[in-house]
């Protein structure tokens, strides 16, 4: 692992904007960070004195806590802001909120927002580093990165690997980020779901579409099972949850009928018995909890790569100031 990390720039908005090299550089950097969480003292002094604001305008448990652990294990000072407890309910705009935070001298913002493009909008308006923790149906880059890391842990090479994303592709920023990331790294990508939940024309991205879960399972080596977003189901995209499970649920009999051993991922939170059955989620194919563990390492890597590091001093760094 002697490859120089590829600079990421100021922000991490989405994997669509990154090169394969940049994505690999994040994954490689995440490897040594895994070990820090296994230590007795789970802390390294990397971001000492940096202030990070976690601006979560949409509910989130896993992602917020994962970011918070990553930040704290790198010794950053963190503040959490959620929509309900902030001036947002009083009508303050996103930019005004951020500018007020800037005025208190912060260094990074991790943003989760219900509107696609919110992270980019913010990044273009404030000098702090901005990390997208999910914006509308656009992207959720750190989730896709931890998926990629987990897949790589088990299958070693992503190039040529057949990965199928199953479920609600239409509303899913996780699906989009995964598609971009997987394609950049040379994987073959399939999507599978009810026709109402697979965007028309998605083949143009370079993915293949499966209408039946059985065909997807026969083709794929890895399944990334997405949550059926119940809160976005008002529009009548599926007739019933039971029917969804019947036709698209990832079940043990379906996995056992597969020609090879599949790896099953799920970004959580799971609807057990809907998109994934309990015996699969808790069974030997599942790497769901390892995804959660890897999430902290990947976020540490992103924070590390984005923080500080003035490019004009790159030369000085190469000469090495340490003896």
């Amino acid at each position, binding site marked *: 692992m002697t490859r120089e*990390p590829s600079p990421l720039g100021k922000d991490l908005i989405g994997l669509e904007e990154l090169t394969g090299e940049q994505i690999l550089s994040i994954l490689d*950097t995440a490897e040594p960070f895994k070990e820090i969480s296994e230590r007795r003292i789970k802390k390294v002094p990397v971001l000492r004195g940096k202030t990070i604001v976690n601006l979560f305008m949409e509910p989130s448990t896993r992602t917020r806590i994962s970011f918070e652990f990553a930040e704290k294990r790198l010794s950053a000072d963190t503040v959490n802001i959620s929509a309900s407890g902030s001036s947002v309910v009083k009508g303050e705009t996103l930019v005004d909120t951020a500018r007020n935070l800037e005025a208190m001298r912060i260094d990074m913002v991790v943003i989760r927002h219900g509107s696609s493009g919110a992270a980019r909008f913010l990044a273009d308006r404030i000098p702090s580093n901005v990390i997208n923790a999910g914006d509308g149906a656009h992207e959720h880059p750190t989730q896709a990165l931890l998926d990629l890391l987990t897949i790589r842990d088990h299958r070693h090479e992503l190039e040529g690997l057949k990965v199928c994303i199953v479920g609600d592709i239409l509303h899913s920023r996780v699906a989009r980020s995964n598609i971009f990331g997987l394609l950049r790294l040379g994987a073959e990508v399939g999507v599978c779901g009810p026709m109402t939940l697979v965007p028309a024309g998605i083949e143009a991205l370079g993915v293949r579409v499966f209408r039946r879960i059985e065909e997807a399972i026969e083709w794929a080596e890895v399944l990334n099972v997405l949550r059926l977003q119940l809160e976005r189901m008002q529009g009548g995209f599926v007739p019933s949850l039971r029917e969804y499970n019947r036709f698209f649920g990832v079940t043990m009999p379906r996995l056992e009928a597969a020609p090879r051993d599949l790896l099953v991922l799920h970004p959580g939170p799971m609807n057990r018995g809907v998109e994934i059955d309990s015996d699969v989620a808790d069974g030997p194919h599942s790497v769901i909890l390892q995804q959660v563990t890897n999430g902290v390492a990947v976020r540490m890597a992103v924070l590390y790569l984005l923080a*500080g590091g003035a490019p004009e001093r790159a030369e000085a760094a190469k000469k090495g100031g340490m*003896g």
Partner: protein
Amino acid sequence: MGDEKRIILMDAPAVERALDRMAREIVERNQGTEDLVVLGIRRRGVELAERIRAKLEEDEGVRIPSGALDITLYRDDLMEVGPRPVVGESNLPLEGVDDRCVVVVDDVLFTGRTSRAAMNELMDWGRPARILLCVLVDRGGRELPIQPDIVGRVVSVLPSQQVEVLVPEEDGRLAVELVTRSEEAR
């Protein structure tokens, strides 16, 4: 890159002899091999530490736990330099470092900043009974109040010169060389 002049300070047999003596000194300082742990600082310190460990195990007929320290995240200039340096993995022996005599091995001791970083990292891992700093070359030029316990060779060189330790695993040969780069190169 401009002109580069290399002078061999120690050839392979000289390095081997120095490492032999350093291994013996470690046993002497620790009054035996009990509770010894040998840790190399990435990258070349790791190769040197492995050699010292092998010598200790051969001479004393015991198994010595060993590992590697990557001090990147503990650098005091981490947030000033860019792009981000590559982070390597630290591997501590299963036995841990608590109440042990930890021998930290590095190739060249210069400013002392790397040793400071290594000690901080070790402290985050546990509470060693004792830390011995063991370096193949002490080239002077300290910026921190840090002194080595066991030294292969002390050399006195100009601040602009570089002392490079070469190991077969990384460089194809075992040697210590003094590198002088001409003015135009810098």
